[in-house]
Structures are given as structure tokens and as C-alpha cells.
């Protein structure tokens, strides 16, 4: 074997005492249990699954995979957890995604999961190619799609898929959506247009060049005529094909009886071409084929740059929309048999198996198993979240460690992911006011350009008729409302994507503009500064029993209860040995009684437990905002739990950050004024009011606005809808089902308050970039238009100037996108 240039990539470092699995990088629980000789040395593996995969790779002679891979195959799929591959052999199912090639040949597009680097692509390609019956395979690294052709007499699709799985990857049939297919086609045709225009421009320039350097007059008229004809021939495809997008958008504008930014450009191109063509045919006058083709090429180049900058920015948003897997493994309700179905067939109540490495196909609850999930796509939080029985799973998150069985609660369009998708669409459909006014300016400018071109034509016709035509064509070419049109979209898309990456969903584009120039921030308390649900604040042991035992008793009693405090009790870490309550009786409004270990036990209010346990020993009173829960038996008191709605850890950081950016912070809450004052004291807020109704909050914000202040309201998004609507910018903590009715401008999916500060920073830099773009585009036009009208700028300089002005705008926006990506 030849030694590869790339160094062997060792798995991620783990604490020195525990060796890491050579294949997947996870810690090895028992050294020496699983071992495979790779690259001449025995390597430790963490489990039989990794050992089998590594052995397959080594036995097939593809050891060099381990030298060229970028990272260990972390969270690799284990074949045993996946549904049997034979289900893909069903001829009925195959009709959807398999195309026949000849009599026995078959072809299919497979989506590969687990591809991380080009070494993975190489490994899969080589391994599949050597399978008997596989005639061709090619894997696209960018899209993770494999095109496979096989002979149906020799091998079955299921066998190919299980071969992929034996390497630690998964493959399933890929069904392209119409949108994807259209994107692909559009990309190819825009590249083709760019090539036609670019190549045409270069060649036409070659023919024009002799004329430019011919000072001595050695170029004969006949030779020049030949080159003019050649230029005309090569300009034709540029005009007829490459200009298509400009002409069709200009035609659509004219048909709708309005003036778009493509109208003057199209007019300039057509007029220039017509005049040059006439000059060629009649054998006299000036030709500017070189300027025209160059203009078209540069314009197309700046537009395709814009397109790719936007693609890069929206790649993540697209991901948000498309993150749902297309298949799910459902456990049939009768016999519990696993079956692979399309994800959109899932219904609430279905039981679904989620293998490690798989994406959760719907919202639901964990029924069996415990694992951790990566919810970073939704919340921007990169740390994995532990998931045990009863935990919420969000569709679109990725199961990392162990197989999980879940019960679907919301599927399809009802899921959180779908709700987020709709919010994002709402934002994409709107424009900030600044952009709307820019569109109006561009519209006016279009009129100005046409009028100026007409005036130039007339003016020069009076002074020097021979220059009139080309001076007015230069006016049409040089002015570029395009730069104005491009100024905002890339910057806005980049800002939206940057926000989404941090778990912040922008639902109204206007918010990006409004975030800049705020003076006041009004905070709600419950659910915003605090977690919105009770947590254990204090525990008093009143008997001999310790905390763990009291908790186990209380949890056993409350296990069926739906009271919020019961929820808080049950959310505490569970006892190792759950107790079994008997004769469980609910006393609504008081508590619960049951017999545990032969003892009558009560949990609930002071009054309710006192009836059984007798007089309460002396205890300090609970504070105003704390809810007590008592526990006692017929032999005496056991414990008091004090619950309170605790402050979020990052609340004080938020208040400091807001103050540092010069904002005045107010605290308004419907809660008891004493509690609100206490919270305000902790955070150091002077301006606070408790016991206010939603209407009061609304009026408060209105009063501030009447003083000319611009107010941002941060709330939980449900109880304070009127005040959110009144605010200049509204921000809500978004979680769970409430997302669907969310009306706030910005939603913090992560539930992390410092997202507010991030949103402010991103909005400021996006608006700064947009303003710079506008300033540049306007300044450029103010200089270029008079210069062209006075005849100082020829057509070719006009072409370069116009394209350059668009390039500057695109580059400045790309700079912003790069800065926000950090």
C-alpha cells in the first residue's frame, strides 16, 4: 500500500485514562474487548458494531480510508438498529424511485447518511463498485447523493443498501422535490448564459482591438468590415440567449405598465446593438459590439454572484425547511413489527423507533430508552440534550446515542419545525420600510434615467448630432438602479440566516430595521426573566426522613397529578427505588392521600396535611412568591418543599448588556408588586411596576412612545399579545405548541435571553451594510449620469462603471455575510 500524504486522523481526544475507539471516537469501556488490526497496528474499538465495520473496511482492502478521513465516524449508524433493507426490494415501492436501464439493469438515486468527508465518499464508492452486479456508482459529495446502476439478476437493491450499512453509513432512496430539480436546472442555465456572454465578449474584444490600436491607418476598410461581421455573428447569441433574463423581466414590467430596473438596461443594450448592426450592414458608422457584450457579461456575473451569496446565506434556512427526514420507522400497533413508511404518513399516537444518528421524524414523547439529542438546528444550542422516558422530542433534532422509542404527538404541518418554517416564510414575504423606500427611489431613478437619456439625445442633436445617439446609449448603460435593487436583499438574508443559526427566528423583516435606534426595553417577568415554571427553592426536613426519601414519597403520591407544582416535583431527579402507593385518593384543591409501606401518607396544603399529622412545628414563613407543599404521615410531619419561579441565570447579564448599549430597562409584571420589586432589586432595576394588567402594559408602552421613545417589549408571547403589538419591536420566548400562534417580531427558540443582545448586534451590522450600499449606489449614479450625459463617458466605460457599481454592492454584502457567519 502506498503511504498517503495526509496524516492519519486520530479520533477526537478523550481523557487520557480512557482510550478512544479508533473507528468512532467514543470512549472504550473495556480495553481489549474489541480489537482490529488497522494500518499495521491493533486498534481498540468500543463495541461489536464498530469492530464489524472496521473489519469490513480492512478486509475489503480500504484501510487507507482511516488515513484520509477528516474525523472519526462519530455517532455512526449501527445496522442492527435500522429496519431491514429488504423492504426496499418491494417492486411496488421500487416503482417510485427505480428506473430500468435496458432489460435487467436498474438505476436509482440514493441519499447517503453519515458522509462527513471525501474519504467517506471514496470508501463507499470503492466498496460498492467491487460488489458483483453493481455496474456504476457515483457519489456527489456536495449533495450526498449516490447514483447507482445494478444488474437485477445478480444483486438486489436491499443488498446494496446493506453493504452501505456494513460500512457504518445508511442509504435510502432519494425522491427529488420539484423545487430541487428546478434549482439544479436554473444553476446550469445561468452558468451557461454566463459562459456564452463571457466567451462572446472576449472574442468580440479581439475583433475590436485592431481598430483601437490602428493609429497609422494600416487597417483596410475591407478587413475591418470582415471583423465587424464576425463581431455581429458572435454578439447575436449573447443578445438572443444570454440577455434572456433582462429582456423577459423588462417585458414583464412593461406589460404590467410599470418601470422596472431592467427596462433602461434592456433599452440600452437593444439600441446599442441595433445601431451597431445597422452600421455593419450599411457599411458606415460606429460599432460598439464589444461594449454591449462586456456589459451583458459583467451584469450576468454580478447577478450570479448575488445568487450564490444568497444561496450561501439561505443554505441554512433551506436546511431548516428541509430538515425533516422523508422516512420513519413505525412500530405497527398490533404486533410491534417495525415498518418503514414515508414520514408524512405519521399520525399522532403512532409509535416510532428512532435509531442513533437518525433524525426525529415528528414531535413526540420518549416512551422507552434513554439517549441524548442534538437540537442545534432548532435552538442553536450545540450541546446535546439528555432524553429519558417522558422527555419531549422535537422533530428535526438528531438522536445521538441510543435507540429511542417515541410516541408521536404532532406530525406533519403541526410540528414545531413546520411552525418555524411558516414564521420564516412570513418574514421572507415582507420587506423593511427602508427597503420599500429604496424600491421607490429605484423606480423614480428609472424615470430619471429615461428622461435623461431623452434629454441627452435632444441636447446633443442640437449641438453635435453625430454624438447624440451614443451619448444617450451611454446614459442608459451607466446608470444602475440595479445596485439599489441589490443593496438590501443579500444583507437581509444574511442577517436572517445569522439569527437562525443562534436559535432566533425573525418573523417580520421590519424588525431588523426597528432594532436599531431603540431607547427603551420593557421586560415581562414570568416566563421571560424567570423560567415560567416552579422549581424547588428550599427543602425543610420536619421528621427523621432525609430529602431523598421524602422526595420519593412525594413523587409516588403526585405521580398521576396534573397540578403545576406536581409537575415541578416530578421533574426533580427520580429516586432510585420508586415507591408503590396504594389506595390513592385525590382531594381536589387540598392534596393526595395514599398508603405507602403500610403508612397513611398525605401530600398537599398545610391545612390538609395538618388534619393527619397534627400541629406544625415552628417554621419560618414562606416568602410571598413561594408555593409550599407539605408532606406528612399519620405519625407526624415529614417535610416542606418550597417552590418558586426562579430567575433565569442569564437575566442579569441581559439587563447589564442592555444598559451598556444605552437602553433604559423597565420591568412590568402582572405579579404581586412585592415579588416584582424583589426581582427588580436583584437585577438593579429602578423602573418597575407589579400588579399591572395587559391593558396597563399596553398603555405604559404607549405613554413611552408618546414621549418620542422607541420601545422594545420582551415577553412570553402569549399573555401579553396587546403590548407586543404596540411595541416598536417585540421579542418573545418561543417554545412548544405556542409557536404556531406567535405574533412577535423575533422569537427566541433557544430560550436563552442573551439572544436579545445578539439580535441587536446582528441587526445593527446588517442595517449599517444596507445604508452603505444605498449611499454608494446613489452617489455613483449622481456622478455617473451627468458625466455620461455630457459625453465624458463612452459606451465601454459606461459598461464597466455600471457593472463595477453592482460588484461593490454585492461584495459589501458578502463581507457582511462573512462577518455574521463567525
Amino acid at each position, binding site marked *: *500500500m*502506498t503511504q*498517503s*500524504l*495526509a496524516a492519519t486522523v486520530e479520533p477526537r481526544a478523550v481523557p487520557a485514562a480512557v482510550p478512544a475507539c479508533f473507528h468512532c471516537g467514543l470512549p472504550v469501556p473495556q480495553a481489549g474487548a474489541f480489537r482490529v488490526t488497522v494500518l499495521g497496528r491493533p486498534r481498540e474499538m468500543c463495541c461489536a458494531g464498530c469492530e464489524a465495520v472496521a473489519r469490513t473496511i480492512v478486509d475489503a*482492502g480500504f484501510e*487507507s480510508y482511516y488515513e*484520509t478521513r477528516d474525523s472519526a465516524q462519530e455517532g455512526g449508524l449501527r445496522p442492527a438498529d435500522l429496519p431491514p433493507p429488504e423492504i426496499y426490494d418491494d417492486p411496488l415501492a421500487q416503482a417510485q424511485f427505480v428506473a430500468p436501464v435496458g432489460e435487467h439493469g436498474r438505476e436509482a438515486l440514493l441519499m447517503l447518511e453519515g458522509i462527513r*468527508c*471525501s*474519504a467517506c*465518499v*471514496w470508501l463507499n464508492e470503492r466498496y460498492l463498485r467491487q460488489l458483483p452486479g453493481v455496474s456504476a456508482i457515483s457519489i*456527489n*459529495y*456536495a*449533495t450526498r447523493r449516490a447514483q447507482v446502476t445494478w444488474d437485477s439478476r445478480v444483486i438486489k437493491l436491499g443488498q446494496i443498501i446493506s453493504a452501505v450499512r456494513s460500512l457504518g453509513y445508511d442509504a435510502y432512496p432519494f425522491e427529488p422535490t420539484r423545487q430541487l430539480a428546478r434549482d*439544479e436546472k436554473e444553476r*446550469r442555465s445561468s*452558468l*451557461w448564459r454566463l*459562459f*456564452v456572454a463571457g*466567451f*462572446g465578449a472576449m*472574442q468580440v474584444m*479581439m*475583433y475590436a482591438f485592431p481598430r483601437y490600436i490602428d493609429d497609422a491607418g494600416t487597417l*483596410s476598410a475591407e*478587413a475591418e468590415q*470582415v*471583423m465587424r461581421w*464576425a463581431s455581429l*455573428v*458572435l454578439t447575436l*447569441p449573447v443578445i438572443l440567449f444570454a440577455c434572456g433574463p433582462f429582456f423577459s423581466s423588462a417585458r414583464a414590467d412593461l406589460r404590467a405598465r410599470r418601470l422596472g430596473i431592467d427596462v433602461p438596461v434592456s433599452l440600452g443594450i437593444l439600441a446599442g446593438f441595433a445601431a451597431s448592426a445597422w452600421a455593419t450592414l450599411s457599411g458606415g458608422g460606429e460599432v460598439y459590439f464589444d461594449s454591449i457584450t462586456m456589459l451583458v457579461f459583467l451584469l450576468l456575473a454580478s447577478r450570479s454572484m448575488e445568487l450564490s451569496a444568497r444561496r450561501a446565506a439561505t443554505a441554512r434556512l433551506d436546511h431548516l425547511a428541509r430538515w425533516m427526514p422523508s422516512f420513519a420507522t413505525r412500530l405497527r400497533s398490533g404486533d410491534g413489527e417495525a415498518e418503514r413508511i414515508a414520514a408524512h404518513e405519521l399520525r399522532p399516537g403512532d409509535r416510532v423507533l428512532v435509531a442513533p444518528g437518525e433524525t426525529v421524524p415528528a414531535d413526540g414523547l420518549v416512551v422507552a430508552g434513554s439517549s441524548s439529542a442534538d437540537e442545534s438546528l432548532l435552538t442553536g444550542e450545540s450541546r446535546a440534550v439528555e432524553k429519558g422516558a417522558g422527555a419531549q422530542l422535537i422533530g428535526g433534532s438528531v438522536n445521538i446515542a441510543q435507540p429511542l422509542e417515541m410516541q408521536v404527538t404532532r406530525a406533519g404541518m403541526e410540528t414545531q419545525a413546520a411552525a418555524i418554517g411558516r414564521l420564516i416564510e412570513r418574514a421572507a414575504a415582507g420587506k423593511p420600510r427602508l427597503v420599500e423606500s429604496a424600491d421607490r427611489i429605484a423606480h423614480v431613478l428609472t424615470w430619471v434615467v429615461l428622461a435623461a437619456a431623452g434629454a441627452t439625445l435632444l441636447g446633443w442633436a442640437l449641438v453635435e448630432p453625430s454624438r447624440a445617439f451614443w451619448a444617450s446609449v451611454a446614459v442608459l448603460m451607466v446608470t444602475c438602479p440595479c445596485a439599489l435593487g441589490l443593496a438590501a436583499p443579500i444583507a437581509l438574508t444574511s442577517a436572517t440566516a445569522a439569527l437562525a443559526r443562534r436559535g432566533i427566528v425573525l418573523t417580520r423583516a421590519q424588525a431588523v430595521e426597528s432594532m436599531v435606534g431603540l431607547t427603551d426595553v420593557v421586560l415581562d417577568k414570568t416566563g421571560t426573566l424567570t423560567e415560567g415554571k416552579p422549581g424547588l427553592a428550599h427543602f425543610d426536613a420536619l421528621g427523621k426522613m432525609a430529602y431523598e426519601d421524602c422526595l420519593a414519597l412525594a413523587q409516588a403520591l403526585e405521580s398521576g397529578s396534573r397540578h403545576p407544582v406536581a409537575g415541578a416535583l416530578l421533574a426533580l431527579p427520580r429516586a432510585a427505588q420508586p415507591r408503590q402507593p396504594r389506595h390513592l385518593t385525590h382531594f381536589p384543591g387540598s392534596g393526595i392521600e395514599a398508603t405507602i409501606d403500610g403508612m397513611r401518607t398525605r401530600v398537599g396544603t398545610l391545612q390538609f396535611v395538618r388534619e393527619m399529622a397534627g400541629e406544625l412545628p415552628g417554621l419560618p414563613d414562606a416568602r410571598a412568591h413561594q408555593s409550599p407543599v407539605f408532606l406528612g404521615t399519620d405519625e407526624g410531619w415529614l417535610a416542606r418543599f418550597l417552590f418558586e419561579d426562579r430567575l433565569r441565570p442569564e437575566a442579569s447579564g441581559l439587563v447589564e448588556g442592555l444598559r451598556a448599549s444605552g437602553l433604559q430597562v423597565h420591568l412590568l409584571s402582572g405579579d404581586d408588586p412585592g415579588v416584582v420589586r424583589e426581582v427588580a432589586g436583584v437585577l438593579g432595576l429602578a423602573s418597575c411596576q407589579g400588579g399591572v394588567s395587559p391593558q396597563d402594559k399596553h398603555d405604559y408602552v404607549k405613554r413611552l412612545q408618546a414621549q418620542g421613545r422607541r420601545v422594545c417589549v420582551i415577553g412570553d408571547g402569549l399573555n401579553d399579545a396587546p403590548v407586543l403589538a404596540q411595541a416598536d419591536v417585540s421579542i418573545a420566548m418561543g417554545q412548544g405548541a405556542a409557536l404556531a400562534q406567535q405574533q412577535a417580531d423575533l422569537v427566541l427558540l433557544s430560550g436563552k435571553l442573551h439572544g436579545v443582545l445578539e439580535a441587536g448586534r446582528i441587526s445593527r451590522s446588517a442595517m449599517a451594510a444596507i445604508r452603505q450600499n444605498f449611499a454608494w449606489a446613489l452617489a455613483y449614479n449622481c456622478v455617473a449620469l451627468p458625466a455620461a450625459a455630457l459625453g465624458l463617458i463612452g459606451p465601454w466605460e459606461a459598461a464597466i462603471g455600471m457593472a463595477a457599481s453592482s460588484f461593490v454592492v454585492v461584495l459589501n454584502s458578502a463581507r457582511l455575510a462573512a462577518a455574521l457567519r463567525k
Partner: protein
Amino acid sequence: MESLYLLVPVSVVLVVLIGGVFWFALHSGQFDDLDRPGREILDDDDKP
């Protein structure tokens, strides 16, 4: 100078030919995946 009468038309034909080659390359998927070929050089290919 007479050579121009031949060379200019030839160059036009060449442009059309090269354009055709590019068209073929584009539509056979040559530019669909630009990341991988650069990495492929690191992969061993000399085994059976």
C-alpha cells in the same frame, strides 16, 4: 492581410465549437460537484 478573410471565419467556427464542448461538459454534470475532485487526489486508486 488576406489571411484575415480565412482566419476570422475560422475563429468564429472555433468559438462555436468551444461553446459546444462547454455545453456538453455542463450538461453532463461536470460542474455539479466542485468540492470533491480537489480532494480525490489524496485517495489511493492503485489497488485492484
